[in-house]
């Protein structure tokens, strides 16, 4: 799709969408929303970019391989944060007693492991959305070969 207006608008809009996505992810423990909604916003910005330009330029920014790896690493990150609790001599997924920094309630850096988990899962959801998009596009591509 060669449309100057769509390209210019999406070029301007994409950074704002991404900042908003990160905002929702990072405030997951304070405000409504969190890793899933924020991740979906973040992932949709990549889809918008790939749709407005073309798949090659989109894949240059974030390739299918990278998004798969980020997806797996995000899920693994959750499990590893849970294992920190066991390493510290507590139960699986223990938060405060395992020595995570709790901060003051209401601050951005607070709530211990929750904020780390939200960050990892937000990236996981974003890359899952992108991976699904790539998978669907590529299946269609195969059919036309």
């Amino acid at each position, binding site marked *: 799709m060669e449309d100057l207006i769509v390209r210019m608008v999406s070029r301007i809009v994409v950074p704002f969408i991404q900042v908003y996505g990160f905002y929702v992810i990072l405030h997951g423990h304070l405000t409504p929303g969190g890793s899933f909604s924020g991740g979906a916003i973040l992932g949709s910005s990549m889809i918008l970019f790939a749709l407005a330009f073309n798949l090659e330029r989109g894949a240059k920014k974030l390739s299918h*391989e990278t998004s*798969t*790896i980020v*997806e*797996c*690493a995000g*899920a*693994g990150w959750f*499990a*590893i944060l*849970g*294992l920190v*609790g*066991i390493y510290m*001599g*507590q*139960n*699986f*997924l*223990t*938060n405060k*007693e395992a020595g995570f920094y709790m901060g003051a309630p209401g601050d951005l850096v607070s709530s211990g492991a929750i904020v780390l988990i939200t960050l990892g899962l937000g990236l996981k959801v974003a890359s899952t959305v992108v991976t699904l998009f790539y998978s669907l596009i590529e299946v269609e591509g195969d059919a036309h070969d």
Partner: protein
Amino acid sequence: MTFINVIHAHSTVLLIVSFLLFSFLMPILERWKNSWCATMAVAAHVLAFVFIGNLSWRVFTEGTIHYELGGWSPPWGIEFVVDYLALFMLITISTVSFLILIFGTVDLTHELKPKVLGLYYTLYLLLVGAMMGLAVTNDFFNMFVFMEIAAISACGIISVKSDRECVEASFKYLMLSAVGTGCVLLSVALLYMIGGHLNFAFAAAAIQDVAHIYPNNILVALALFSVGFIVKAALFPLHVWLPDAPSSAPSPSSAILSGLVIKIYTVVYLKLLYKVFPIELFDLLPVFDMILILSALSIFFGSIFAIVQEDIKRMLAFSSIAQIGYVFLGIGLANSTGLTGGLLHIFNHAMMKSMLFLSAGAIIYCTGIRKIDDLKGIGLKMPVVMGAFTIGAMAMVGIPTTNGFISKLYLALGTLDANKHFYLAIILISSFLNCLYYFPIVINAFFGESEEEDGEEEIQVKKLPLRMSVPLIILGAGCMIFGIFPKYILVIIERAVEMIL
């Protein structure tokens, strides 16, 4: 803090987390070292054996294990409980899935494209992890989540071959199991509405208190649970997804679907019936009688459908419907002998059905034959495979010295205890029907002459690799050993039944 202490204190959760973590890391490993994926999957199972060994030692010495995730105590936090029933399922799942995996490491390289091979192990480990989670969970919401994980990954391992039949079968399974999980979610919502708890123990106490105020809620919840789990477990009227799925999927997928996945839902259903719902409810609504009728229909029609099948894997899939009927028969009898028989049949059928599917897979691997009529004279060319198949067929029919005999004996005694002689007749008729479709294959394979008309050449037989024959031999030996010495598994089952009733 030593390593052994960590295993000792946390083996319940480490068991499930190790499966999930290994499956998450598998796609990364696949890009880096493709050939290590199978080894990693085997390593996850070996690790699981360590944890399950520790769990069984603790359950036998200390009794039921409760594990609180995150240190939050039950009404608020998530709780995993390992009792004898869960331990029995863990042992069944880990042993059978390990043997299927060993078989699969060779068979899958033949059946799948190399591109999806690493991802297959991801889905396989997810499925096994989710089943183990279902066995130990003590929480409605976790039950629902693990059911979803198991459903999605089961769809993945059915459709992995990405030909037309597989995609159709997995779509069918996806839709029907979505209906099933939808029913379960709805009834969880109904129970949460009146009980206010998600933990099984607390929900049961709360429901007991309010049962006389909201009987309709509980009845609807029970009905929805029943429908959901009957779809998942493929009991007769709602079995339509099962024949397609295992017959088109790769053989290890068929083995794990028919052998384990449909069983775990019956166990969860059993757990809910006895742990959550108040016992007075069953006077109001004869659930157990309904289960008995459905299981009798399932036993009868599963066998009837199996007789007319031409494809060997499709026949085995229909036979699974009949065999899951036995498990439900044990649940429906609701006395200790019958329930022992039902639970024992879970273990026995997991072994014999996965062995039958794997030997069917080995026949397809070595010769490419799927039609039952073409199997004439194959027995002497593939003695190990057809030997295993023969033991499986004998166990299915329930001939003494095989494990099928023991579980059918317990079920038959259970029907006598419950004074329901009609179901004894059903068990006997079904055994004859089993004879009718299993033994012709065996007799044809060993004594049938392959017709060599039109100058047709002999069937080409590839050599069976060691990694495919060893799981078959172990499963066959297991069927015989547990037929002669059933006490080694009955030790756990009898305590589980004692705890349930």
